[in-house]
């Protein structure tokens, strides 16, 4: 699938801090939540990059900052060679056609007062790409594309199940023929049997339309299933990045190792034999990350240097990046 390996997205030293303020009237800036703290990676054309991490690891913020739904604190994102953070107003708006997002909660991300037809037509109107008859036809085509009956155009979101709503969200994201879609936990709120339907649809659409995905989720098995390469985030940083098989067979970062071992496999035979690495404690607050390597509070193999110096995110073998002193 990834033949020529041309990067579509290049993220360099991306940072996003959310300020913590005190006081009601005069808001003093007393600190920062370092939601994303210096991450760099590429997403190649036509691939799916999976981004996994636990609650508060900053994975959603990465997705949103790449699309400039959040203004970045620092860093650079090149989209097809264009520096997104330098674009202004109309230029950025035109660029947005090429990048879309699918949200986690299909209940909150669809306006309950709009019909399905007008929800899907909205991006076409905003960007003025289709009118009248052409617009209607495009909406019907999109509904068919995501496996919904075109006859549903005049219905409202509440008439649909969770899985069908997620299909509507996907149709809306596809309306402008984007190159790149950020899928932010698109299946987390769906039941198991419905998750597979949506994932198969996403895979199918990627093949047919040549889409590039950033697939963000906390479910490791699902991310590994859909991704070509995977990045693991912990406390605002990417700790490991490599292809889907390498990360499963040969995880190098102790956090990745623990994460892989903690994921249950639906097979009692496998479960009986597995050795779990149980991490102690919880993820620390991103407002006050530990000094040195930010995993040192839970790391089973931490040494002195891990409490002093931050490990560099480096390529230890071709295509396998990791940030750990012990590797």
């Amino acid at each position: 699938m990834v033949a020529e390996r041309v990067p579509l997205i290049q993220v360099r030293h991306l940072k996003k801090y959310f300020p913590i303020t005190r006081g009601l009237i005069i808001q003093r800036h007393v600190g920062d939540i370092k939601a994303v703290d210096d991450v760099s990676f590429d997403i190649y054309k036509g691939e799916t990059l999976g981004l996994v991490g636990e609650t508060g690891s900053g994975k959603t913020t990465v997705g949103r900052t790449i699309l400039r739904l959040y203004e970045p604190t620092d860093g650079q994102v090149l989209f097809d060679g264009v520096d997104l953070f330098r674009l202004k107003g109309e230029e950025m708006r035109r660029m947005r056609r090429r990048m879309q997002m699918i949200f986690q909660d299909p209940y909150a991300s669809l306006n309950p007062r709009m019909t399905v037809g007008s929800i899907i037509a909205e991006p076409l109107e905003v960007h003025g790409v289709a009118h009248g008859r052409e617009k209607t036809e495009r909406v019907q085509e999109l509904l068919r594309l995501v496996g919904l009956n075109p006859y549903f155009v005049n219905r409202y979101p509440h008439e649909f199940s969770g899985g069908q709503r997620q299909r509507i969200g996907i149709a809306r994201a596809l309306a402008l023929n984007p190159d790149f879609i950020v899928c932010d936990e698109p299946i987390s709120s769906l039941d198991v049997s419905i998750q597979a339907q949506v994932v198969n649809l996403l895979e199918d659409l990627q093949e047919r339309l040549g889409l590039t995905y950033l697939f963000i989720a906390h479910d490791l098995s699902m991310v590994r299933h859909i991704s070509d390469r995977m990045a693991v985030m912990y406390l605002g940083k990417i700790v490991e990045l490599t292809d889907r098989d390498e990360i499963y067979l040969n995880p190098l970062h102790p956090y990745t190792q623990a994460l892989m071992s903690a994921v249950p496999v639906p097979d009692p035979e496998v479960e009986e034999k597995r050795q779990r690495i149980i991490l102690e404690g919880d993820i620390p607050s991103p407002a006050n990350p530990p000094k040195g390597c930010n995993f040192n509070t839970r790391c089973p193999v931490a040494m002195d240097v891990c409490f002093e110096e931050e490990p560099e995110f480096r390529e230890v073998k071709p295509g396998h990046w990791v940030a750990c002193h012990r590797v």
Partner: protein
Amino acid sequence: MGTLMEIKNLTVRFYTDDGVVHAVNGISYSMDEGDTLGVVGESGCGKSVHALSIMRLIPSPPGRIEDGEIWFNGRDLLKVSESEMHKVRGAEIAMVFQDPMTSLNPVYTVGFQIMEALKLHQGMDDHQARERAAELLTMVGIPEARQRLDDYPHQFSGGMRQRAMIAMALSCNPKLLIADEPTTALDVTIQAQIVELVKRLQEQLGMAVMWITHDLGVVAGLAKKVNVMYAGYIVERGNVWDIYKRPRHPYTQGLLGSLPRLDEPPGTKLISIPGLPPDLIDLPPGCPFAARCVYAIDKCLEAMPPLEEADGADQHLVACWRWEYIAGREK
């Protein structure tokens, strides 16, 4: 081992403005002392409602337990008085819920809430209860337990709150612990901590555990027996190896097929189950899975199949008219 609980023909309905919701439709099974039962199914399959019925905590109205018996420790819990039931809840059967934030009271300290049960069920005084509460928090792996007793729930992390809930549930040495999606709100590394904790405590204390979840992965490593529920019915039941290695109901097979595995080889396709679960207000007369089932025949649309023995295997039960045909096809 003796039988701990026997449920016969439990039927629960909710009378709502939209119609009668058939939440649990005549399920029967028994559980041994010290056993670990996984109850799996998707939203709305009746797994939580059936557990709440055991505790007699179904909100009524609109809910009503229409029929059935729940035999526990020599008496039918559906027949005992409300005051007798007070003694059962917490003392004999304890429950841990999905969301530890909403099941702890935010305005009382964690210690106060653990001590409450000890004073009520075991007649301890303040001093004894405090000692015991500290012991319990230590047992569930909360460091500096004595100091943490004076913390409020918001000062605990999600995983610690769930540990505190488990401490509370175990405070009176229940014979049965019902854990209703206890790890769903937690991250995977914290989930692993809680699963290990429950396994260890079960070994120490010897109670039976019912683990209700939609996550087939967790159950595979934890349970000895599994009930698979769909639309208020138990559609398949058996020991964990039979359910995962030789599933006989097409729904169980579909669920396992639609689940990605961490250890799957590249290029694996997920086999999704088409369609949606049925509306519980308007249940079809036959098998509730028939509309989504590729093996369905006319008979499936007409009558609900009984839960019968499959493969002649010990306690492997399946409710499907077509299981023999499906099993035959695989060979």
